[in-house]
Structure formats: structure tokens, C-alpha cells
């Protein structure tokens, strides 16, 4: 029996579970709250399934009635699983985060935004909505809440105090943020230290919460597309691709072959630029200014190439449901091919210089280590996971678009430290360059867009964004307006584990560790 049928067989024989395989890619199950924790634990521990995302939807007519969907995927079986649970008003769900720790932040978020309580969760409260600002008991994702204006009332005002666990004499909490001394994204990092070593880190995010999921509701498909594209501008193409896939899946349409190939090309272009920007930040964090300048030149080169082949430095305005808005011309293709050779040469030179700089390596080796165990427990994704020995990549494990034909190589490292992450950024950039070179000579002729009818329905879609797996869930109404948009982003997954990599580091290593993680706050906060 193959592993895929084994999993299905196990689920079919699970007592009192209704299993319906609606389409080829997803096993859908309806379960009860009592079944949930045991089922989730078995899936993750026995079947090695990965938690994908959690989605709460309020019933359109019955206030405070929720449908909660837990998504998992089984990388080896290439299967996606949906556990659906109906929650009656006023009832709670058992927390699964002690078994599936990756779901921890998802449960906190659902409590904060929907008022849905998870029994047994130890840390509900002060998360997305900050207690000192936001009035108690107002749940903004509920239908009855109007997104248009801020509700009256304040939180507990200026009385919020950063937590302090350390009780030694001379111990302090050193705040970093939300305004930085240089160009970092806003967020608050509280370093607890007795003087030199960081004993605890408390990460407080969502200073940039723009409520994208809420304000998308009621918007037309085209309008919400702009939100999906621009809520995390450093990975605009990846997120807009996931959004387009969701619309296409609802409509039952597929983009033409040429469009699917071009999407891969632009996605790899974005990945390469994203990783080079992280490399520049890592060099800058160690004050290696020549290396930073060399990496900045690479970033600027990628951006100028993007503008020349796509019209925009961050690839905005390129995709649409059904394909692409604009084609790639022969001269743009030639320019692209020529640029790749130059960029590979410069990238290899920079890597060689860095790998022989012992003073630089001293700063990032064994720094900010995320062990393989923690990587699994927290369910981190993307380059962070691959640097900690987890060969996970949706392009391989749940192939979408034309990736089933163009399987990228997945590099992994075992150490999980800053240097391992740097090596992953370099390796993946080089693999992306190779993939682009191969594809650019073999793009199919034909149309770049097919008519994508807007239909009522819902669908989950996913993309391996530069920073890892992203899952977008979309429900559309008859008139083509968005009823629910869920953005399950890699930033939201990886920030959760970041604190684990800091404990025990020296004070001055904090910005270096932050740079080697290279996480987007905008992608987390949404």
C-alpha cells in the first residue's frame, strides 16, 4: 500500500469521521471539537503532516456561528487535508497548539480578531490588537464590526508594561523599536538581559496591522487583488500569484502554458532579488560595508532588470486571474538572459569573498541557531526551515502551476545558524538563476491570458513565496465581491520561532541574528 492510500485508509477507518474527497488535491474531513486534538496530533506526529493554516469564517446569517478550517499537508504524499468544524455561538474549541505548536499564533489571532476562545491555550490576549490601544471585547473580524472607522474608546492607555521575567539584580528590559535607528520595519523587540547576554526576547508585532483581511471584504476581485499584491511588497508576485490561483480555482480555469512559465520566471526573479536583499542586510549588520555595497549592487541590478522586463521594480501589476497582463518580448528576454550571466558572476564573487572572511564568519557562525527540533515544533517554512535541515518546499511537495515539470532543486543545511541561512540564500539564488536560464530559452508560444469568469465559491491556493509557504483562502460571492480573504503567510509562521534563536546570544548579536533571519514584518502583520 502506498503512503498516500495508507493515509486515506487510516482516515476512512477513523471512527465517526466523514471523509469526502471533493477534488484531486484535497482530502476534506468534517470532525467534532472532541476529535480535533487527537486527530491533529496523529497527523503531525505519525503521518508527518505539516500544519498549513487555520481559517475562521463567521456564518453570513448567524452571528457568532463559526466554521473553522484547519489545513494540513502531507509533503511525502503530496496531499492537502482540510479538517472542518462547526462552532456554535458561545462555545469554545480545544486548543491544538500543545500538539501542533505551529498553530499557536493562529489560535491567538483567532481569539483576538473573532473572539473565538481556545480551551487550554495559555496566552490568549494582547496580540494583534495591542491592549493599551484597543478597547476590550471588540472583535474586528466579526460581520457586525464596521471596518470604516475606529471604534470609540481606548485600551488601558499608557499603563501597558513590557513583561519582565528576569529578577536578578541589575537586570533590565532593553526595548528595540517600534522606531528604529536605521531603516528597519516597525515592531517592538524587548531584550531581557542582566548586562551582556540576552536571556529572553519578547517580540511584539502588529504595529503595522492594516487589517488587510477585513478591508478586503466587500471589495471586487480586481480591487482586492491590489491588496493581495501590496500587503507585503517584497514578495508581491508570490502573494498575487496565490490570489490569482484561488480565483482561477473557483472559476475552474487554468492559465495558458506560456503564462504559467512566465509566472515561474517572474517568481524566481523575485526570489533572487529577495534573497540578495537579505544578503545585503546580513553584510550590513556585521558592518562589512564593502560587502554590503557589493550586495546592494546586486539588489539594484535585479530591481532594474525587473523594471525592464516587467515595467515595475517590484513586479507590481503583472498578474491577473487567468494569466498575465503583459507579455515578455524577445528583446526583454535577451536582456534578461544577458543579465543573469552577469549577476551569477557577481554573486559567486561575493560568496567567495565572504566565505574566506574569518572575521565575518565569526559573527554569523553558531549565531541565532534554530535547532532541527525547534524548526519542526514551530513548523517554520522557507529558507529558515531549509537551513535547519527541513527539506520543505511547496514547489516540490504540492506542485502548482508548471512547477511539476520544472522541479527546482531544494538545498538544505543542517546547522540552523546564521551562516547556514546565508548559504541557503546564496544557494537558492543560484538555483533560481539556473532555472530562469533554462526556462528563458524554452518559453512556449501562445496566449498569455485566458478569460477567467468570476464565480461564487471558495478555494485554497498556495505558493512558495521567497520566505516560504504562503496559503491564501478566498471566498467570492455571486456578484464577484470578496466575502473572505485569508492570508496565511510565511512571515506569520517564522516570526513565531524567532525568539528561540535569540536566547543566550550576546546583546550586540541581536541585529545580526535579525538580519540572518531576514523576515518581513509587513508579511506577518498584514
Amino acid at each position, binding site marked *: 500500500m502506498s503512503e498516500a492510500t495508507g493515509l486515506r485508509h487510516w482516515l476512512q477507518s477513523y471512527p465517526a469521521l466523514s471523509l469526502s474527497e471533493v477534488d484531486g488535491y484535497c482530502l476534506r474531513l468534517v470532525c467534532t471539537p472532541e476529535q480535533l486534538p487527537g486527530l491533529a496530533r496523529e497527523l503531525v506526529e505519525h503521518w508527518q503532516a505539516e500544519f498549513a493554516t487555520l481559517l475562521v469564517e463567521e456564518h453570513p446569517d448567524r452571528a457568532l456561528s463559526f466554521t473553522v478550517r484547519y489545513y494540513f499537508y502531507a509533503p511525502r504524499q503530496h496531499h492537502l487535508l482540510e479538517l472542518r468544524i462547526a462552532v456554535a455561538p458561545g462555545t469554545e474549541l480545544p486548543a491544538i497548539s500543545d500538539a501542533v505548536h505551529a498553530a499557536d499564533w493562529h489560535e491567538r489571532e483567532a481569539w483576538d480578531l473573532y473572539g473565538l476562545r481556545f480551551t487550554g491555550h495559555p496566552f490568549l490576549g494582547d496580540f494583534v490588537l495591542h491592549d493599551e490601544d484597543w478597547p476590550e471585547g471588540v472583535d474586528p473580524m466579526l460581520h457586525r464590526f464596521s471596518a470604516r*472607522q475606529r471604534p470609540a474608546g481606548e485600551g488601558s492607555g499608557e499603563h501597558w508594561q513590557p513583561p519582565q521575567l528576569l529578577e536578578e539584580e541589575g537586570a533590565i528590559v532593553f526595548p528595540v523599536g517600534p522606531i528604529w535607528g536605521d531603516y528597519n*520595519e*516597525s515592531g517592538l523587540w524587548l531584550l531581557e538581559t542582566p548586562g551582556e547576554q540576552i536571556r529572553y526576547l519578547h517580540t511584539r508585532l502588529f504595529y*503595522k*496591522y*492594516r487589517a488587510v483581511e477585513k478591508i478586503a471584504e466587500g471589495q471586487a476581485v480586481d480591487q482586492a487583488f*491590489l491588496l493581495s499584491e*501590496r500587503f507585503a*511588497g517584497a514578495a508581491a508576485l508570490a502573494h498575487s500569484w496565490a490570489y490569482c490561483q484561488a480565483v482561477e480555482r473557483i472559476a475552474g480555469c487554468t492559465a495558458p502554458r506560456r503564462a504559467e512559465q512566465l509566472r515561474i520566471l517572474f517568481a524566481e526573479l523575485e526570489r533572487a532579488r529577495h534573497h540578495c536583499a537579505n544578503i545585503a542586510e546580513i553584510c550590513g549588520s556585521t558592518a562589512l560595508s564593502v560587502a554590503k555595497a557589493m550586495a546592494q549592487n546586486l539588489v539594484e541590478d535585479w530591481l532594474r532588470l525587473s523594471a525592464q522586463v516587467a*515595467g515595475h521594480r517590484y513586479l507590481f501589476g503583472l498578474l491577473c486571474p487567468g494569466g498575465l497582463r503583459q507579455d515578455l518580448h524577445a528583446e526583454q528576454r535577451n536582456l534578461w538572459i544577458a543579465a543573469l550571466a552577469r549577476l551569477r558572476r557577481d554573486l559567486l564573487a561575493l560568496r567567495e569573498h565572504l566565505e574566506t572572511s574569518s572575521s565575518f564568519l565569526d559573527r554569523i557562525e553558531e549565531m541565532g541557531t534554530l535547532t532541527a527540533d525547534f524548526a519542526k515544533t514551530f513548523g517554520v517554512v522557507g529558507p529558515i526551515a531549509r537551513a535547519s535541515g527541513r527539506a520543505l518546499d511547496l514547489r516540490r511537495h504540492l506542485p502548482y502551476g508548471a512547477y511539476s515539470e520544472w522541479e527546482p532543486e531544494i538545498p538544505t543545511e543542517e546547522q540552523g545558524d546564521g551562516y547556514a541561512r546565508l548559504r541557503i540564500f546564496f544557494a537558492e539564488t543560484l538555483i533560481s538563476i539556473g532555472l530562469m536560464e533554462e526556462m528563458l530559452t524554452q518559453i512556449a508560444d501562445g496566449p498569455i491570458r485566458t478569460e477567467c469568469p468570476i464565480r461564487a465559491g471558495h478555494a485554497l491556493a498556495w505558493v512558495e513565496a521567497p520566505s516560504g509557504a504562503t496559503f491564501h483562502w478566498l471566498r467570492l460571492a455571486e456578484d464577484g465581491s470578496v466575502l473572505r480573504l485569508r492570508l496565511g503567510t510565511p512571515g506569520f509562521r517564522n516570526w513565531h520561532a524567532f525568539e528561540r534563536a535569540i536566547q543566550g546570544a550576546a546583546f550586540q548579536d541581536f541585529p545580526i541574528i535579525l538580519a540572518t533571519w531576514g523576515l518581513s514584518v509587513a508579511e506577518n502583520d498584514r
Partner: protein
Amino acid sequence: MSFWPWYGLRGGQQTESWEASVPAGASPGRPVAAARQDADQFSMICPTQALRAQAGRVEVEMDHCVHCQRCRQGADPLPWQEDAAWSHWRDTHAQPFPARFRRSLHVLYVDAGACGACVNEIRLVDAPVYNLHRFGIFITATPRDADVLLVSGPITDAMHRAVVKAYAAMPEPKRVLGMGVCAINGGVFGKSFASHGGLEGVIPVDLWIPGCPPPPLAIIEGLRRLMGWTNGPAEREVR
């Protein structure tokens, strides 16, 4: 062993001339107003109302343009030009800094909900090709030392207080520069319970730099305008 000073010197001077035309790809460009018979209908393709039909012409409101490119895709597009001198004063009373600031201007950057593209462009203003420091402009770590507050993002509810406090902590004379369409009017995020919909009404603003995101050249041009310089990189005509 790596010998970084040599690698740096070997690369030669990489900074691009300020007066030269905008290098290819250094700006996403922007639509240009044009007379057209279908002005009423054509201007409706803009999802952010940056195009406006007026007396048989399509006018462009740069403060609303997010470079979605819809008006340059398709069979009969609007002309676009690649330039980067996009900044404009908020009102007629606004004044540049006195001349003594022309060799030393210190800027504090605050991210008030930006998507990451603005942040990425700011990170490049000190890249070798742009070399912000040649104009005597520096990024500073604290509002106490800052002459300019450079803000991007739609001003989220949680950053509102931080922006107000940073402004209050700056010594006089001070100027505020709103960067990107989000800081001007909220951009695609607009005004909601979570976003203030731009800097207007939060702190007094002197200069706007439109764009989504404004490229490094546009950011530097805006900072130079605050210092009283008015020349910018030359336009580059493209279709």
C-alpha cells in the same frame, strides 16, 4: 583571506551622475496626461482613480498612482515617462530649509505600516550608485538629532502614537516628508479602523513624494528639494 579595501577600490567609482538621465530600470515611470477622444471611458480603467477625464484629456493625479500599469497595457495605452522628480510641496506656505542645511541634513525614517517595498527602496539610497551621502544627507538614529521625519505607510493605528511622539521630539526647524502614496492618502489600504489613511491630520506635512514605491532617485530628489535644491535627474522618454 579576503581583502575588502582592495575589492572596493577595484570596483572604481560607481556613483551615477545626478544630472544624467534616469538609468533604465531605476524608476517604474508614470503615466503622462494626454488628449484622447475616449477620455471618459479610458480613465475608468484606473483602479485607484489616478486618471481623470477633463475636456477631452486624460489627466493624471500622481498622488493616487500606484503604477498598476493598467493604462499602459493593452492596445492603445497612455504614454509613460521614466522620471523620478516627483516630489511636491504640500501647500504654498511650505519652505525649504535655510541654506546652512545644504551640506548637512539628518533624516529619521519611520515605517508606519509600509508594505516592505518602500523600506527596500530606502535601504538602497546609500547604495554605491545612489550614494546619498554625497549630498550631505544622513540617516540618523534618533528624532532628537533629526531635521527631517521621513514617513512611509498608511499610518496604522498602532504606529499613530509613535509618529506623533517622534515628531514632537525633533528640534526646530524641522520638516516632514510623506513618502509613497500610502503616506499621502492611505494608498490601496485607504482609511479604516486600522489605518489613518495617510499623514494628513496626524502631524504637519511639508513635502510629498508620490509613487508606489518611490524609487531611490525620487526619495533623494525629495530630500534635496527640502534643502532648497531643485534640479533632478533628467527625464527619459519611453513608451
